[in-house]
């Protein structure tokens, strides 16, 4: 496609260069004055640790392994997510399991180890799409930082519990145990 270049005829005043500079300075000064009389809370900047930005619903942040009402894991260790993952960062080890008292008991299979290397994950959301059981979701939470690399290996416990408190769900503390001692970075 051809680009049409519009020739702008500059008036002699604009060609002095001094006059456009003054015009520009008026613009910046207007911004300055407007900001000067806007309280900090009303400006565009989100003052991050104090105020946090609400992410839109489709945002792809930290993963969560969903659970049933009674707290048992939805995942059936079908390896679909691990297969779909372009970053190859999901590690699953399956185990046989049946306990008819639990909702998940009918599925007869569950992950023994479910690990996501958050350092390799590219937050593409393919795992969420691939999952036949809707067991893995990407949340809108984006605060992912740690003091060392090991902490970024999220195990099954982390994936199920990291945001449990925030959602008002009980933490599952008996089975399975946290994969890595995960201490959130203080903000």
């Amino acid at each position, binding site marked *: 496609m051809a680009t049409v270049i519009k020739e702008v005829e500059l008036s002699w005043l604009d060609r002095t260069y*001094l006059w456009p*500079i003054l015009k*520009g*300075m008026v613009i*910046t000064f207007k*911004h*300055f004055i407007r*900001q*000067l009389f806007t309280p900090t809370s009303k*400006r565009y900047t989100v003052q991050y640790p104090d105020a946090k930005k609400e992410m839109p619903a489709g945002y792809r942040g930290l993963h969560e392994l969903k659970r049933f009402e009674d707290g048992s894991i939805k995942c059936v260790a079908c390896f679909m997510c691990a297969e779909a993952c372009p970053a190859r960062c999901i590690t699953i080890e399956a185990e046989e399991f049946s306990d008819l008292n639990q909702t998940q008991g009918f599925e007869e299979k569950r992950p023994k180890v479910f690990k996501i290397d958050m350092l390799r994950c590219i937050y593409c959301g393919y795992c969420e799409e691939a999952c036949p059981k809707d067991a893995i979701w990407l949340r809108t939470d984006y605060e992912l930082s740690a003091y060392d690399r090991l902490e970024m290996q999220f195990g099954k416990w982390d994936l199920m519990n990291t945001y449990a408190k925030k959602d008002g769900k009980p933490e599952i503390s008996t089975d399975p145990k946290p994969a890595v001692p995960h201490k959130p970075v203080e903000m």
Partner: protein
Amino acid sequence: MDSLAQLLHLTPATLWMIVKVLLVFGGPFTIASLLTWVERRGSAMIQDRIGPNRAALFGKWRLLGLPQIVADGIKAFLKEDLVPPHAVGILFWLAPLFAFVPAVLGFAVIPFGQSFTIGNTQYHMSLLDPGNGMGMLYPMAIGAVAIYGVLTAAWSSNNKWSILGGMRVSAQMISYELAMSLAVVAIFMRTGNAGPPTFLEAYDPHRIVAAQAGLWNVIPQFLGFVVFSTCMFAETNRLPFDFAEGESEIVAGYLTEFGSMKFALMYLSEYVHIVTAAALIVTLYLGGWQIPFVADPGALLSVAAFLAKLLIVCWVFIWVRWTLPRFRYDQLMALGWKVMLPLALGNLMLHAWWMHRAAM
């Protein structure tokens, strides 16, 4: 003054000298460090941001982000002082000094207030008393020396980005110094011709300020004012002329290899340069310590007037930086040689012709 001097076993002249030294070296420093804060907060405002506001004294008082200056200073002190192995050792150490010393020296002849008399001694508000024979030529010369700081830094870093920045800035400074000097010569001519007859040379800043009592130079010499201010922007390496740094093109230019306190010194000297440049503009064109319609403002008021003008001009330096983008290098050269120099020459000719007409 006399009794205080006696108390300290000094002559009043010596005491006044010490006070002046403290003022002249402390003043620009204080203003410069405040300017770093003004720059960051002001730029934030201009760009609809907030700017640094989290540093707090004892974790409590944020004071509009002013403690940031202190925090930056402490940070610069505590950082590892890294010297790249390929740097030219001694020069690399000296470069911040070369950049820094001329920046503060330039202020020495600027009269920052009206001279006052106690008893029968006259005290002058400038580090060097009037009639020292150097006058306004001195800050010009010092300004020309300032380029060595940049050049030494660039050369000693032994780095491509640095040397590119250094080359650019040396070419730039030389080009703009010509126009600047020509603009100032017109002022010398005018001052020598007008004003009350004194024993002072026409290029003595005290006389230049005194000659502006009725009308500030900015009005009859508007052309010269524009040329001089533009050249001052070039001299201080500020946008739109910051070719020495040029972040988007050559990393940080001559500053690339400098870290910790060395960088802080270079950075501070840039701001001291601004203060000195602003003082020059105020003295030469904006009437120095004169207040309009006040014939004899007295010592304190005149210092206040000078300070107010100085700060306003400093703010203009910052304001322009956040308004204009950087020139291209060839544009810079074209502006310097094809516009500024002819303008300055024309200004000179115009005034020479005027004076010639008036003398006839």
